[in-house]
């Protein structure tokens, strides 16, 4: 008789989810699924609002990456106004995006994932968290918290508050950069650089400690997709999409992100609110792809900051004979490389006098009835697509969120870990946490990715005491 093992809730991720493991009659893993069972509705309730309100509304999708939604929404607004925003505004938006990467990535690595690495997958689950880490590895935790604080404070300095700042708007930004804060931030740079370099060193040591586990953390072939600059450099605000296969071949390049519907399809499964995007040319599910730090560092030709570029070369050496680093565990390494890049770029921007410019906003009326914004959010490429009437009232919204783009790969990771660690039908704490840790490699943000309302699977079944189906509702 087949069995289903349920793990719920999945802890230390943003949002609510469950995992089910399906066994056959010989207790072998037949399938494993990552279910997202929270449900929101941003796309629907944005209809009827003014396009000017969209950055403020959509930033509420998430408490972790609101700045990415702000920037992407404002870029969709720029497109509707048909304006090129002032140079100062673009550089300030870039700085906000980088600050967002730092605070989100630091949260993922130091607060959520490092307890597994430093305290051990098999350590007391009640202490395997940031507070347990504080007790056992005080200095590591303190510096991780300070690193995230740097990102948070920069967001606050730019936007007036750490979370849900309404600072970016269609056409630019609302307020100038406060020049009096420049030295304060620059003086902080050496500390956060060192913290990140030390974290990379720690991660490399961890890799030796968990050398038997790591090969099972979502190690498979897939496509990698993200934005790169025109010259192939790591990019985060603008640029063109690149698609790379697991042999390191660039299978598509310089794709216009505004044509994203031509490249990405979406499928709904009955057992999850999270859709399953795929790369259209390869179809579903063969078009599985990964986005976010692992993809970005894999697909770029180089990183234009020295410390991050040095680490990128080490990262690429992990690919061995393959052209790309295919193991999802190395999302963590790529995330730290991106923190390093962000710090170096922020230093560069702080020393750029253009950020102190007075002209920060281009003003215009509605000039197009459709606008698309995109940027590289911490977890991958984020798209906002709005349709408006001539008064700027939102008629329709489509958002393609990074966490959803990793959905097929997350499910594949769960399956791989379940096959490796499930012993019969018993769940050990260590196995449970390894499966969760596999999901945490992707740092999924389920609050963001279940923003949809509409044609989604909702399936309720009612069973009697004999386990017989007596009622069923599908919608």
């Amino acid at each position: 008789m087949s069995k289903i093992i349920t793990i719920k809730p999945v802890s230390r991720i943003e949002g609510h989810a469950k995992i089910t493991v399906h066994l056959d009659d010989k207790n072998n893993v037949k399938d494993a699924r990552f279910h997202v069972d929270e449900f929101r509705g941003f796309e629907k309730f944005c209809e009827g609002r003014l396009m000017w309100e969209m950055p403020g509304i959509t930033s509420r999708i998430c408490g972790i990456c609101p700045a990415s939604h702000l920037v992407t929404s404002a870029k969709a607004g720029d497109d509707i106004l048909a304006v090129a925003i002032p140079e100062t505004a673009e550089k300030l938006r870039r700085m906000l995006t980088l600050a967002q990467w730092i605070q989100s990535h630091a949260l993922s690595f130091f607060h959520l994932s490092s307890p597994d690495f430093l305290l051990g997958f098999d350590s007391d689950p009640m202490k395997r968290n940031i507070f347990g880490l504080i007790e056992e590895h005080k200095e590591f935790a303190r510096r991780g918290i300070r690193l995230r604080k740097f990102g948070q404070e920069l967001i606050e300095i730019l936007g007036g508050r750490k979370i849900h700042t309404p600072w970016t708007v269609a056409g630019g930004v609302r307020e100038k950069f406060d020049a009096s804060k420049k030295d304060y931030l620059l003086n902080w740079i050496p500390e956060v650089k060192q913290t990140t370099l030390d974290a990379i060193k720690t991660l490399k040591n961890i890799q030796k400690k968990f050398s038997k586990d790591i090969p099972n953390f979502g190690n498979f072939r897939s496509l990698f997709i993200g934005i790169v600059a025109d010259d192939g450099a790591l990019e985060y605000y603008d640029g063109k999409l690149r698609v790379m296969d697991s042999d390191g071949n660039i299978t598509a390049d310089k794709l216009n992100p505004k044509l994203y519907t031509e490249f990405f399809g979406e499928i709904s499964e009955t057992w999850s609110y999270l859709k399953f995007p795929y790369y259209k040319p390869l179809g579903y599910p063969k078009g599985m792809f990964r986005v976010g730090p692992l993809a970005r560092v894999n697909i770029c030709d180089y990183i234009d900051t020295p410390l991050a570029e040095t680490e990128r070369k080490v990262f690429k050496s992990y690919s061995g004979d393959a052209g790309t680093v295919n193991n999802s565990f190395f999302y963590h390494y790529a995330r730290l490389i991106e923190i390093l890049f962000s710090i170096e770029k922020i230093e560069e921007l702080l020393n750029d006098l253009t950020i102190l410019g007075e002209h920060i906003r281009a003003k215009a009326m509605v000039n197009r009835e459709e606008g698309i914004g995109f940027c590289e959010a911490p977890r991958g490429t984020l798209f906002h697509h709005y349709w408006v009437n001539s008064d700027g009232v939102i008629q329709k919204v489509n958002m393609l969120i990074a966490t959803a783009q990793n959905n097929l790969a997350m499910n594949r990771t769960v399956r791989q870990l379940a096959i490796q660690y499930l012993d019969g039908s018993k769940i050990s704490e260590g196995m449970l946490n390894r499966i969760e840790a596999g999901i945490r490699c992707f740092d999924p943000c389920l609050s963001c990715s279940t923003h949809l309302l509409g044609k989604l699977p909702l399936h309720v079944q009612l069973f009697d005491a004999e386990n017989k189906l007596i009622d069923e509702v599908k919608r």
Partner: protein
Amino acid sequence: MNKTLVIGYGNTVRGDDGAGIAAVGILKKYYPHFDFLSIHQLTPELSETMSNYQSVYFIDASVEVAEVTKIKLQPEISTGILNTHVVSPQNLLNTCLHLYGKIPSETILFHIPAYHYGFSEELSVSTQERIEELVVYLSASVGTSNKKI
């Protein structure tokens, strides 16, 4: 060190959940010598800030109380579940103690009764009245207001 920090937190677009932030807006007028923070949610970084104060007052909305309540906080042993949405004032105090070796001599959590958590940027009349009670309550608890309430 003789400083007081007041932290009001909550979601200002979910009705009464924004009571802590609304309270800070009012208290600022009466306690110009205090420092104030209005924030959406508590995050571990706050522990460093807290370590620099003698007194820290948290103000939050709660559906579990019928009147303004005051809880004196002590560092608490952490639980096994953490995401950034469930960092508690006690967790922060614990972090403060372990990372910085010092905690405020007084940390208090004030709960304001809340009734409606729907989508709204306005507080219910009942919660607004409770905020006024908090101002009086705080005056009685900590005194030292420079202005007459």
